[in-house]
């Protein structure tokens, strides 16, 4: 993600501003539906990277991993994306009456929607969104701010607190990701249900955060920072990416296969929408981009620690996650796959904004969590 980060921010600022103008124009020219679908896409995309990064941090505390301590600051900094994404989510609540059939008054006449009208209604939807945002920011404060403070204080008590908080975070994380999946994505197709859907978004979130972390580590190394991070560390990141690529495919296949096999009208609409009207191309591309390419690109032992290969796979993985979110969200519009100036404007604005933020975030705290009592052990890690 960060490799396109230019030396001077002026290019990024220009891109963001230009994108912003296009975004405003989208609302006027292309209509609110097109505007809000893009808005939700970018909210979900950035949020999954942010919360996934926080998951990586918490996972390390949970299992007392040592190898990853030298790179832990990277996902900690990436997790701060949760801060700018909060107002995006709050503004996005305005999309609910536009794109969420369950929140519209005529939902009462639909038997299925009437039964869960309260759940789908705008007030309760907003309460849940505010709740998950608060929980995410709280977790961010505990895990990331505490870790950055440890740089100076060298207080091992933080490590104790983080280790204690980590299991609780996992519970919160499951809650947060499941709600984002069901509210912000599946909520736009409220008749459809699939209880694996939270797990599906979790894997995507974890993978995109892993890819961002890998890219940021490689970028920092190219800037002669994090020089003590060696191939052994990269290998572990590569292995995780490889393993969870397979896990993503497993979850995606399980959901597809079971719905295809049972062929129930309640469920197959989801896939019918994504296999017709031009969308089948996106569906097949998704399988190739999210499984086949990373699987074969990372199969060998050498590929998992080769920075050049990891750089390419990391970019491809982020692209695949974007495609995944596009595939989940855009078919709601009921038209074929669209990609035109509104999407480009949104990409300019949000990518530009994210890179500006990450540029800044990469200067927060030390490059490594130097207050961690086990940093030395992590630096000495060898396969």
């Amino acid at each position, binding site marked *: 993600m960060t490799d396109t980060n230019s030396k001077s921010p002026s290019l990024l600022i220009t891109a963001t501003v230009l994108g912003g103008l296009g975004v405003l124009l989208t609302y006027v020219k292309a209509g609110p539906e097109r505007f809000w679908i893009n808005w939700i896409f970018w909210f979900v995309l950035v949020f999954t990277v942010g919360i996934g990064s926080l998951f990586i941090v918490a996972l390390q505390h949970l299992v007392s991993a*040592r*190898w990853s301590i030298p790179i832990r600051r990277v996902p900690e900094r990436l997790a701060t994306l949760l801060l700018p994404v909060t107002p995006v989510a709050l503004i996005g609540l305005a999309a609910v009456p536009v794109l969420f059939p369950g929140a519209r008054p005529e939902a009462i006449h639909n*038997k*299925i929607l009437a*039964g*869960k009208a309260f*759940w789908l209604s705008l007030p309760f939807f907003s309460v849940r969104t505010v709740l998950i945002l608060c929980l995410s920011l709280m977790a961010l404060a505990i895990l990331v701010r505490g870790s950055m403070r440890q740089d100076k204080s*060298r207080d*091992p008590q933080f*490590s*104790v607190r983080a280790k*204690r908080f980590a*299991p609780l975070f*996992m519970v919160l994380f499951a809650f947060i990701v499941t709600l984002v999946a*069901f509210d912000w994505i599946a909520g736009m197709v409220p008749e459809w*249900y*699939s*209880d*694996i859907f*939270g*797990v599906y978004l979790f894997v995507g979130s974890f993978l995109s955060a892993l890819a961002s972390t890998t890219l940021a580590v490689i970028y920092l*190394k*190219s800037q*002669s*920072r*994090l*020089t*003590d991070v*060696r*191939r052994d560390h990269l290998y572990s990141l590569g*292995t995780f990416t490889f*393993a969870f690529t*397979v*896990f993503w495919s*497993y*979850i995606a296949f*399980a*959901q597809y*296969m*079971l*719905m295809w*096999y*049972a062929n129930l009208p*309640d469920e197959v609409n989801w896939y019918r929408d994504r296999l017709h009207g031009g969308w089948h191309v996106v569906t097949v591309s998704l399988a190739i981009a999210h499984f086949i390419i990373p699987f074969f690109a990372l199969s060998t032992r050498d590929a998992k620690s*080769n*920075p*050049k290969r990891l750089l390419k796979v990391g970019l491809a993985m982020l692209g695949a996650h974007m495609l995944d979110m596009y595939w989940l969200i855009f078919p709601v519009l009921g038209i074929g796959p669209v990609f035109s100036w509104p999407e480009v404007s949104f990409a300019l604005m949000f990518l530009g904004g994210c890179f500006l933020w990450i540029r800044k975030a990469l200067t927060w705290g*030390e*490059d*490594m969590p*130097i207050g961690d*009592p*086990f*940093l*030395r*052990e992590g*630096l*000495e*890690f*060898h396969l």
Partner: protein
Amino acid sequence: MSDSALVGILPEKVRKDTKKAPASESAFVGGLPESLRPPSLIEGKVTPGSLDDQVLAFPGKRPPRAWFIAIAITTTLLLLGASMFCYTIYKGIGVWGNTSPVFWAFDIINFVFWVGIGHAGTLISAILFMFRMRWRNAIARFAEAMTIFAVICAGIFPALHTGRPWLDFFLFPYPNQRALWPNFRSPLLWDVFAISTYFSVSLMFWYLGLVPDIASMRDRTKSKLRKTIYTILAVGWRGAASHWRHYEKAYLLLAGLATGLVLSVHSVVSFDFATSIVPAWHMTIFPPYFVAGAIFAGFAMVVIVLVVVRETMQIKNLITDYHLDVMNKVILAMSCLMGYSYFMEGATAWYSQNEYIIHAFKNIISGTYGWAGWLTISCNILIPQLLWFKKCRTSYFWMILVSIAVTIGMWFERFVIIVISLHQDYLPSSWRIYRPTLVDFSILLGSFGLFFTLVLLFARVLPVIATSEVKSMLPGAQPKRGGHHE
């Protein structure tokens, strides 16, 4: 950018950074909080020689009295089960409680239960190996053995469930004069492949790990008969560097294969249910949820057996309190995943607003079998929450209590899934209550008898701990620093 350029020379700023890092974690240990101290995976003074004496000598000794009492009980159960097994073949499966519409009952419950028990071994030997979790080294052998025994127990039930077990070879697809071909679209056939692959890979993995230890036993034993048997089983292992090189490569490859199997086997088992359109069976979360449940039940069984083994075989210095603590943490994590799955299933049933699914889920917590539903939830979700407390994770009483609860709960979970969902189908006039017969119970007890008989025999004739893997954790075994996991 090339890798050498990346490693490069340390720039001044970074060199300063890493200097700021604590010189070593030992500098902290004085002031390091208790909970951060690296755990001890081996207690007391253990040398490679003393380890061999401790572990490899056991199969040669006369077992303690308790062993004879235990095997007397388990073989009795086994004989009971075997006799009822034969009775079923003689009379037909009408002697079971299965009726319309509950065509699947104890046979499939027991099958899923035992396949699940096997998963802990594969997880410990393959996935934890991949994660470089070194605490697995001491317990991997035993857990792998339990995998194999559990899959043997599991295999009995579908074989008998077909009704005419002498025709079970029909299940295998091969060109034949009968012009019969199995239905490849049926998940029941996928099961045949999944389970047989699982069994073969687990067996190979287990045997491969055993070879160096069998060779050591061959060299140690005085008895001629044992020497002959161990010589054959050791397949010419002399511990040469080339042997180890091949061994390590094969171990890694099999671990990689088995990693996929941990997920695939129980997923395929879950497809037996989830591909159908029976309400409460057709759930997309079934594959990962079955895998989590399998690991959950398997770990509980491993804890129960390991507690007994470490007490009776005096290997508390190798299987330490820390091992039990971590395994209980895994049980707790899996319990939380189960809780998530149960919650998602119930919530999705409501969210679907589909009256059939809602009805099926209401049946789980109310109605004739409501007690089974609540028993499952209590044993699998509520009781394991005790493991949040360190005291419970390290006390025999509490961990055994939780593990037994989990074993009961996971058996009843399959009862809930199978019997409750089937006993009321789409046609209310054919609804019927299922009642198991004595034959059902006897075969279930018999499978426990078989499992524990095999476990007891294994402990008697083969080394229960992989000595070479534990030796790799002894001081000085690693080029840099051994001890704790990275």
